[in-house]
């Protein structure tokens, strides 16, 4: 039974090997690369990876290379439709520019989240630090 169960995890990712994937991580990072290997925990090996930062309708790319990603940090991975990718309405901007707007947006978001979490906590809701760290 056990070997059968492990088998089911692998079948779901085996079709994606050697394809160009978008991987979203728990800290909000988006990586684009070629899936070369994986295991039953969804640990991944990505080749020719770039990190793409999105803010509004703009994005910027940082070349990163090979990644070994621990499965627990993976939110989702998806195959990129190369035709749809070409039709993208987003515009590419230089890395320095996107990092700057990302920093500004993040500061605003952290400020907003702090207030929200305090309000919700006053209302008896459970908003803990761990959740606050997961800004994906």
């Amino acid at each position, binding site marked *: 039974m056990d070997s059968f169960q492990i088998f*089911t995890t692998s079948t*779901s990712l085996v079709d994606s090997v050697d394809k160009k994937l978008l991987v979203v991580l728990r800290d909000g990072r988006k990586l684009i690369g070629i899936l070369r290997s994986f295991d039953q925990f*969804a640990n991944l090996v990505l080749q020719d990876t770039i990190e793409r930062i999105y803010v509004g309708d703009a994005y910027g790319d940082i070349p990163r290379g090979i990644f070994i990603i621990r499965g627990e940090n993976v939110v989702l*991975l998806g195959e990129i439709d190369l035709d749809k990718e070409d039709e993208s309405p987003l515009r590419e901007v230089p890395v320095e520019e996107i990092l700057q707007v990302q920093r500004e947006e993040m500061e605003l978001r952290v400020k907003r989240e702090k207030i929200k979490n305090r309000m919700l906590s006053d209302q008896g809701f459970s908003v803990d630090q761990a959740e606050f760290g997961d800004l994906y």
Partner: protein
Amino acid sequence: MLFYSFFKTLVGQPVTVELKNDLAITGVLVSVDQFLNIKLDNIKVVDEERYPHMLAVKNCFIRGSVVRYVQLPAPSVDTALLQDAARRERQQPAAARR
């Protein structure tokens, strides 16, 4: 194992998976495994404008641990069977302990 078996009966059905970060993705359920990792095909993100990075993605593998809800097609769910299975699943471990 109850929900693993349950989701297997829903393969081929349209579902909406809502993640803990509020991202909601509708698609056809392709596969599920024992961790309740979910694979969807022909996906559409519910609030597309907020998640531009998903625009070019056609199918996806979602790690079970990041799922908050899965909205299911009610007519495909046999609630009587589910309740029976839930009752049985609880009895088994209790009996094994004695």
